[in-house]
């Protein structure tokens, strides 16, 4: 409940600031809706850009994938599907 109160207070202060700036005629009246909308659109664009950049830089670790494949086939061939030892081996590999 506290988090949404924080977000709402932030929104209210920002809009109060914007209305105050408009009323004091520091900003021309034609920009009433334009500048907040511009910031919202640019924020969405920035989020999309970060998602795209993260996708491009995501590491696939091909060597670890091969090692993991070997471990899984080894355990499958032993026909002892022991989940605990599998996790222990995975932890050792990842460390």
């Amino acid at each position, binding site marked *: 409940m506290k988090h949404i109160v924080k977000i709402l207070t932030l929104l209210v202060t920002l809009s109060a600031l914007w209305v105050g700036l408009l009323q004091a005629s520091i900003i021309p009246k034609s920009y009433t809706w*334009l500048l907040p909308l511009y910031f919202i659109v640019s924020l969405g664009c920035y989020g999309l850009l970060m998602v795209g950049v993260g996708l491009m830089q995501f590491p696939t670790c091909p060597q670890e994938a091969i090692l993991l494949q070997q471990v899984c086939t080894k355990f499958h061939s032993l026909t002892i599907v022991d989940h605990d030892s599998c996790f222990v081996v995975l932890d050792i590999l990842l460390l």
Partner: protein
Amino acid sequence: MELADRAIGLLLSVISLSIFTYYTFWVIILPFVETDHFVHKYFLPQEYAILIPVVIGVALVCFLMMFIGYVMLRSKRKNA
């Protein structure tokens, strides 16, 4: 598989950058250009700079709420 990921990431970033530059140009630079410059041909009238994001935003919010309602109804029907 990582090539497909990188292609999608590149496409997303290109789309976001192009939208950002077009919108910046439209909103911030164009009001300071004289009205008989040829560049005005490539941009819609300024009212659309407000209308189009608002319409898209409203459509997105409607779609999100419909999706949430659909998921809630489906889980309720599964429980009952």
